[in-house]
């Protein structure tokens, strides 16, 4: 297809229209008799003037420049790019869900409240937590909410002033330390040991009555299950801190083990990862938060409750931290996750994790001979390779870009920071062994090319809508909006 390179503003022709509105059928008055002149704006809006056809072609052409899960394999580590079932989208588009106002009387939205309540219950069962809120908008937002609850807990005990530290492993997702910092916590990073686990001794050293809690991903970002998780929880609890579970990697444990049973006090899940709701090119996500019994009173309001066969929104929670978002969270996203859980059932969810884990181990096993595998032990849903060493100066980035030429989305690269030139691969359960084999042969072919024709890698990708881009100029002289005067 011909290369399409127009901005919608460049399609604009004076006089073109893409909208239609009914005539205004009420008696009207001149606007400036209704709103004083001095409040009326004069500057133009500078929106494009295009026809409906222009719009449809423009966005259809743009969409063709994206790689997506529906295009092919998307092994982005810690992002769980699994298949997004179509039926979920259909369900979310039912008028009875899509077209209801958040402030309607409760009796007119019983179906919606039931969905929220049932999803809440399902997530409580899956995580082993006492109560779950659906309000947080994304994983990072869930972390923030969870830490707010942690703060409220220490405040109630009169210890918030001294408990100023949050412990995170050095392999943690960047959002963990960032979320803690936003709430004014001091972040203490503990090094992992040579097996990629939390170093218990180093942990003991930093534990004290100034610790508010610890944030942990389990399995961690190396895809490794923390064998000492119980001991870690006990240590932190003994020091008076709370354990926070980052659910980014929950796809490995559905129906196998539960953070609640491991000893975590607060958890979040990413519905857009583990529960198949689409990532939407960067959002919307959803990050429900679950807590143990004595922390439930701190959850954001309102809480969906069931009384007899009526569902209600309870705002009367005096200890609640308050609201962290408008209304009740990303209802439409929760709806898709609920549909997914119903489609999978208990056994299905367990099979999700089994298949996710076996796929990851299968890939790891097939690649470890050729690529560095810094920590060689059974992984869970994902694993981390170390890239190629001094192979004609070929970098991990080159490998990632070359994979694009082979029709695969690159894995997560240069993360976690604890592994040099990391290549972090998460296949998910929705990929067949045939896809995995094809990916393996591409990865192996690339190592050959690195030896024989490195420039092939350094210049990759070759047949994409654009080639490698100049990020330095973009950041030095930012152009972040189109204006007719910007030429480049």
């Amino acid at each position: 297809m011909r290369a399409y390179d127009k901005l919608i503003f460049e399609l604009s022709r004076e006089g073109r229209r893409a909208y239609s509105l009914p005539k205004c059928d009420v008696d009207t008055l001149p606007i400036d008799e209704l709103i004083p002149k001095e409040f009326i704006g004069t500057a133009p809006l500078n929106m494009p003037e295009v026809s409906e056809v222009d719009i449809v072609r423009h966005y259809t052409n743009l969409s063709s420049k994206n790689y997506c899960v529906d295009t092919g394999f998307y092994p982005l580590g810690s992002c769980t790019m699994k298949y997004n079932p179509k039926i979920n989208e259909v369900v979310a588009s039912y008028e009875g869900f899509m077209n209801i106002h958040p402030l309607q009387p409760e009796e007119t939205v019983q179906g919606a409240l039931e969905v929220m309540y049932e999803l809440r219950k399902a997530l409580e069962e899956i995580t082993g937590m006492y109560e779950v809120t659906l309000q947080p908008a994304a994983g990072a937002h869930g972390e923030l909410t969870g830490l707010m609850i942690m703060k409220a807990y220490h405040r109630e005990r009169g210890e918030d002033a001294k408990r100023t530290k949050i412990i995170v492993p050095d392999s943690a997702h960047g959002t963990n330390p960032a979320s803690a910092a936003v709430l004014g916590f001091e972040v203490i990073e503990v090094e992992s040991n040579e097996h990629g686990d939390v170093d218990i001794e180093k942990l003991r050293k930093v534990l004290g009555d100034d610790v508010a809690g610890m944030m942990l991903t389990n399995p961690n970002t190396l895809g490794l299950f923390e064998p000492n998780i119980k001991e870690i929880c006990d240590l932190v609890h003994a020091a008076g801190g709370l354990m926070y579970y980052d659910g980014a990697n929950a796809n490995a444990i559905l129906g196998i083990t539960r953070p609640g049973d491991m000893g975590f006090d607060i958890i979040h899940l990413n519905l857009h990862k583990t529960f198949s709701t689409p990532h939407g090119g960067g959002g919307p996500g959803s990050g429900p938060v679950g807590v143990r019994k004595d922390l439930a009173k701190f959850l954001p309001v309102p809480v969906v409750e069931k009384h007899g066969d009526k569902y209600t929104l309870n705002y009367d929670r005096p200890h609640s931290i308050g609201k962290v978002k408008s209304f009740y969270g990303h209802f439409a996203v929760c709806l898709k996750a609920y549909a997914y859980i119903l489609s999978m059932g208990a056994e299905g969810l367990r099979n999700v994790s089994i298949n996710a884990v076996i796929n990851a181990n299968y890939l790891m096993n097939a690649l470890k001979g050729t690529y560095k595998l810094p920590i060689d032990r059974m992984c869970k849903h994902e694993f981390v390779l170390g890239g190629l060493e001094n192979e004609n100066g070929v970098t991990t980035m080159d490998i990632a870009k070359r994979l694009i030429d082979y029709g695969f989305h690159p894995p997560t690269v240069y993360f976690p920071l604890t592994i040099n030139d990391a290549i972090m691969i998460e296949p998910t359960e929705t990929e067949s062994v045939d896809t995995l084999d094809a990916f393996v042969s591409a990865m192996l072919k690339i190592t050959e090319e690195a030896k024989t024709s490195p420039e092939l890698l350094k210049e990759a990708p070759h047949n994409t809508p654009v080639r490698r881009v100049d990020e330095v100029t973009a950041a030095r002289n930012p152009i972040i909006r189109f204006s007719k005067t910007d030429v480049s």
Partner: protein
Amino acid sequence: MEIKKGLYYTEEHEWVRVSGNTAYIGITDYAQDAMGDIVYVELPEVGDTLKAGDVFSVIESVKAASDIYLPVSGTVLKVNTELEDSPEMINEDPYGSWIIAVDMLDDTELDQLMDAAAYKEYLSEEN
């Protein structure tokens, strides 16, 4: 990795060049190399009085934003506005591209800093 004689150095990889009671401050070759292509330098206001250890600038590369700490207390005399137009000057000539010049409050603070030899030592230990 170039280390220039006659300058003072900090463990955060800032350098200080003293002329009279004025201290010119920049970042070392090691620091600019670690940061990569520098895209933006945030400058303080002339006249600000800052303590040793205060963050007086943030230097951004594509992949990082690094706080730059003031090695010696003082009042900002000059800021190098050229860096607003061409932040890459720091990559090209780290020891020539001072970021600010301060009028020192207490030049004995200089004694806490490293000389070229000590900094060289420090670098080799770090790596």
